[in-house]
């Protein structure tokens, strides 16, 4: 196995997890909600892609973004805005509830079996550069990850709405006192997390070509865990943590010897527990204390 090859694969996996972690970190920053139900946004967008892609691909992409954003806003309006003042642990439990609830709803609507369709079939092709085989989908996920991370960063630092989001995530109450419209800032962050979820859904459905009720759970779990070890509330830290977990997972899959490869996920969780014990507030928490992306 070529090391360079493995690194490329790991980077593309990491990019997807970083996107998921960015969505979680943004929402957490503004309202202290570690949103378990982020995975169900990904699943919803995935369903839209799989069902509509055979009909018309631009429609599918627009619908995926629309569905994920609408669902994110709905979640906020129906559940989270009512319990904003509760401690983070309660919010986490509530989002856990929303997550399971939505999974059952998907069960009911689409059935427990996976739906399949080829999403962006052109992307499964690969290009050869010397010894390396590079899947187009890896290139796309890395590019998509970079573009969206940059876009969110520019939005947060260059637009007035973005600055309001940053201020709100720094100190929600003070920001409110200073005249920042809390409702619209929160709605906006939820909407962005919806867009990110749609992007993740695109990469994942292009890779697997199928969607089931628990489609978004795995990536969200790892992203949530990644953003926690990176330092929740520090956006840069969340993204780095999410990337790290995806990267580690991919490298473990490639390099662990066969007899122990089944335990790769166990190793990731062990790593997480160890990191949290060493650095309870996340690895990147202190270094980035002033600089917030």
């Amino acid at each position: 196995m070529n090391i360079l090859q493995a690194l490329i694969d790991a980077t593309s996996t990491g990019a997807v997890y970083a996107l998921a972690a960015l969505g979680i970190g943004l929402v957490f920053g503004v309202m202290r909600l570690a949103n378990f139900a982020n995975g169900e946004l990904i699943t919803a967008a995935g369903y839209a892609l799989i069902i509509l892609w055979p009909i018309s691909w631009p429609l599918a992409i627009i619908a995926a973004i629309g569905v994920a954003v609408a669902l994110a806003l709905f979640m906020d309006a129906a559940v989270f805005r009512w319990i904003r003042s509760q401690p983070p642990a309660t919010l986490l439990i509530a989002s856990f509830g929303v997550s399971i609830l939505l999974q059952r709803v998907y069960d009911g609507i689409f059935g427990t079996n996976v739906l399949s369709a080829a999403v962006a079939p052109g992307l499964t092709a690969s290009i050869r550069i010397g010894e390396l085989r590079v899947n187009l989908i890896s290139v796309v996920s890395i590019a998509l990850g970079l573009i969206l991370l940059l876009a969110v960063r520019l939005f947060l630092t260059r637009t007035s709405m973005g600055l309001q989001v940053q201020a709100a995530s720094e100190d929600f109450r003070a920001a409110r006192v200073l005249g920042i419209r809390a409702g619209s800032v929160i709605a906006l962050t939820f909407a962005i997390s919806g867009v990110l979820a749609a992007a993740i859904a695109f990469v994942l459905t292009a890779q697997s070509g199928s969607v089931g009720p628990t489609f978004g759970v795995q990536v969200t779990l790892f992203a949530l865990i990644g953003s926690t070890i990176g330092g929740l509330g520090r956006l840069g830290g969340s993204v780095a943590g999410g990337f790290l977990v995806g990267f580690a997972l991919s490298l473990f899959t490639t390099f662990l010897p066969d007899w122990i490869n089944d335990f790769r996920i166990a190793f990731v969780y062990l790593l997480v527990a160890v990191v949290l014990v060493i650095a309870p507030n996340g690895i990147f928490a202190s270094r980035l204390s002033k600089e917030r992306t």
Partner: protein
Amino acid sequence: MTSPNSVPRRFPGIAIPEPLAKLWTLVVPLVVVWLFSFLASSISQTAAIDLGYALANLIIVVAMWTFIGNSGVLSFGHIAFVAVGAWTLSLLTIPATIKSSIMPDLFPFLSDAQATPLVALAIAAVAGGLVALLSGLALMRLNGLEAGIATFALLMLVVQILTYWKQVGPKAGQSMTGLPRSFDLQTVLLIALLVIALAWLYGQSRSARMLRASRDNIQAAPASGVRVTLHRVIAFTVSGALAAIGGAVWVQLNGVAQASQFSLDFTFTTIAMLVVGGMRSLWGAVVGTLAISALSHALSLLEKGVQLGDFMISLPSGSRLITLGAIMVIILIFRPAGLTGGREAMWPFRPKITRPGAQAAE
């Protein structure tokens, strides 16, 4: 909990000594659980089966309360101890011949081990307590969200190990079968009542009181000399042992053990029970479990279909978990402290004995 200056309610004349009023907070849950079981087992055969699972869940939820309720620290990992308990009981009670045929790669000491059900239950509790102690030593410095995530990682770690480690179980995610059914409903009820009593006893202990002080004010407690981490580890260990008992009872009712059963859904169901009742009190854990179990039984009947006059009413399958999720979210929105408001089942008539200062002396 009883503030000395509060206005006496209803019948101020009927006062009882304080120890008795305290005992009341144990007697009420015990009697309610016993009555509930008595009623449920006399309704129908299916109700009796569901009752068994309800009691197993009750043990697990009470175990979770022992830690979460007293410490105020979130744990998504308790199903790991449930899994350890279930695994221990299974390995000890499945007949040797079946064991060697479905799990040929088992460690010799595990394939030779055999115990009577009650001894196996005790060993399961010890195993769960040990795993909780070891993981608690590492994890108990964490607070809030980080604790939730770290304990969740622990659950996933344990599930992965039980799924893939052939020396401690069947190969790659297969199930352990051949579990003899050794506890009848009466025994399960007795075990549940015993666990409630143990959890209550722990709740009365000095360690638990210090832990609750740290729950209510994490800054002040250490400053007053409370060793928060130590008491959390103690609570986590007790709670892990009780949860393992719950797992052992659950698995022998279920008859089959499989690693994938100890999943997010199981975690969610038990957390929902605790949240709905009220995380902060033992009474809340009991009320939440009984209420959700009864509701869940009723919903599963409705899923099968019920004759009402000329109409056959039936809910689509899967609506059970949807309803549970919705109820939990609604309770969190409108009554975040749960149905009981996080209070114990108090003696309805104020004990007049409480003197100002008596609280501080405790």
